[in-house]
């Protein structure tokens, strides 16, 4: 079953065409790697999918909904969560509240019930605390729940971003360079984490520059260069694809 499909997606900034007619599909349960040289337009594709940018042309369908006119918070509500390439936590707030920010869109308490602290609001608040702590346990940060998010190590901040995204109860999660800035040990643990996210029946798309990482965790790879999709397929096909090798290594004259 196709959960996400991009159809002829196009976006330009002034004269620069960042994404030019990109189309691909993601099946439910897949782990898809989006790779390509710097400036290929990968993050722009992510920003289009998550609603941070509006496409000039083309369509995005997610789980039966058309996304290209929706604001980011609506897209999260539909079940598509993200992490950011440059970490965007709420650094001054405690780790727990960072995860609770993800729970926000699944909570229903109205303004009035919050103002009057009605019983239903207190029950929901308690349930949200449990859910948030479970996500922190899932990524291995539960003991740090009181700490300021900004005080965590780089790798821990990346994992906290993932926990925050998981707290939105997504069907699809997009990870922008999840291993960026991680050491070998952390990258190794991240592979395990991604496998466990997949086991929760959550589809994953990720951008990553670490090729051995991508080849190990992804079961499908999409390659972009200069805003254009140049190849897609299983990891072993991509490794042999002459256009991909050319894009990464250049070609002999």
């Amino acid at each position, binding site marked *: 079953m196709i959960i996400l499909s991009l159809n002829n997606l196009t976006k330009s900034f002034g004269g620069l065409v960042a994404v030019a007619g990109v189309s691909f599909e993601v099946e439910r349960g897949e782990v898809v790697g989006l790779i390509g040289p710097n400036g290929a337009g990968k993050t722009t594709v992510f920003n289009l999918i998550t609603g941070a940018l509006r496409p000039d042309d083309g369509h995005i369908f997610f789980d039966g909904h058309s996304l290209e006119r929706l604001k980011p918070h609506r897209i999260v509500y539909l079940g598509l969560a993200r992490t950011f390439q440059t970490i965007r936590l709420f650094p001054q707030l405690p780790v727990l509240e960072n995860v609770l*920010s*993800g729970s*926000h869109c699944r909570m229903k308490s109205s303004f009035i019930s*919050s*103002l009057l*602290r009605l019983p239903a609001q207190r029950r929901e608040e*308690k349930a949200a*605390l449990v859910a948030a702590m479970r996500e922190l346990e899932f990524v291995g940060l539960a003991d740090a729940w009181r700490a300021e998010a900004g005080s965590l190590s780089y790798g821990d901040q990346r994992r906290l971003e993932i926990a925050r995204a998981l707290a939105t109860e997504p069907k699809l999660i997009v990870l922008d360079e999840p291993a960026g800035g991680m050491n070998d040990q952390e990258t190794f643990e991240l592979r395990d984490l991604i496998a466990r996210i997949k086991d929760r029946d959550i589809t994953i798309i990720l951008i990553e520059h670490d090729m051995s990482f991508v080849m190990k965790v992804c079961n499908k790879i999409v390659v972009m260069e200069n805003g254009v999709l140049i190849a897609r397929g299983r990891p072993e096909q991509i490794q042999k694809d002459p256009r991909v090798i050319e894009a990464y290594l250049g070609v002999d004259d």
Partner: protein
Amino acid sequence: MSAAADKWFWPQAALVALFFCAPAFGLGPYWLEVLNQIGLYALLALSLNIILGHAGMFHMGHAAFFAVGAYTTGILYTSYGWPILCTLPLAGLAAGIFALLVAAPIIHLRGDYLLVVTIGIVEIVRIALVNNIFGLTGGANGLVGIARPVIFGFKLTRPWHFFYLIWGFTAVSLLLFHWLENSRFGRALNYIREDPVAAEGIGVNTTRYKLMAFVIGAVWAGFAGTFYASQMRTISPGSFNFWESVVLFTIVILGGSGNQKGVLLGAFLVVGLPELFRSLQSSRLLFFGAALVLMMIFRPQGLLPPKGRAYRLPPEVAR
């Protein structure tokens, strides 16, 4: 609640109880009036704290919402003969609707851009009032002869009556706002203050929450307007000028934006201290200004910065 918070609970409760006994200690009407004025500013500053302290929006036009509330009460009484306390909900409602209308087009503005526009709102409201808008506001002279409030047949006339009215309402508001701040609503405002892009990207409807912060702050400013109108019995456009907005802004920033205790302290310092130093007369504003400059250099986060929320983890996930 942490152990440190427990330790301070009873001393604080005693302080509050002592404060509410103030009229019984032979405090003269003058000082009660000063306390009433502090209470009114505290109420206004607490409502501004939601917008400025929690959502981090630089709003320097709070006097406009205060004016809408005060004039709603004034007009409903002088033109339609409504009892004063019956105008309270309408004063809040009118201020809230006004805030919704003026904030909706400017809510996407950030930082100092929003600041400039909100200053404009105060001036527009003041000038509209001076020009006797709708023929109801009495022009530059304002509205006179507004009645004292009556509660169950008891007419509030003396300063200590108003002391309990204003500070009682402020106490209830403190509790409600405390609950609000410790809910998903309060957290959503903090996410917006910290990083609006990340907040929107993780599922917070930032536009809606920013607007709601404005509206709820305005509703309470409108309530304060009712108390002000019935206490002063006369309201005029001059009472709702830009300077009032600056004072409220100062209270929140100086006391500690996002912390109720800080805002209360700010109200006592900014409104109360000048009264203590009346003898210095003309130079007191100079001291006031110097104190603010020193504050911004040595303690920019305010006298009492927020401590963060206390969470008690349910047993199944306790750490």
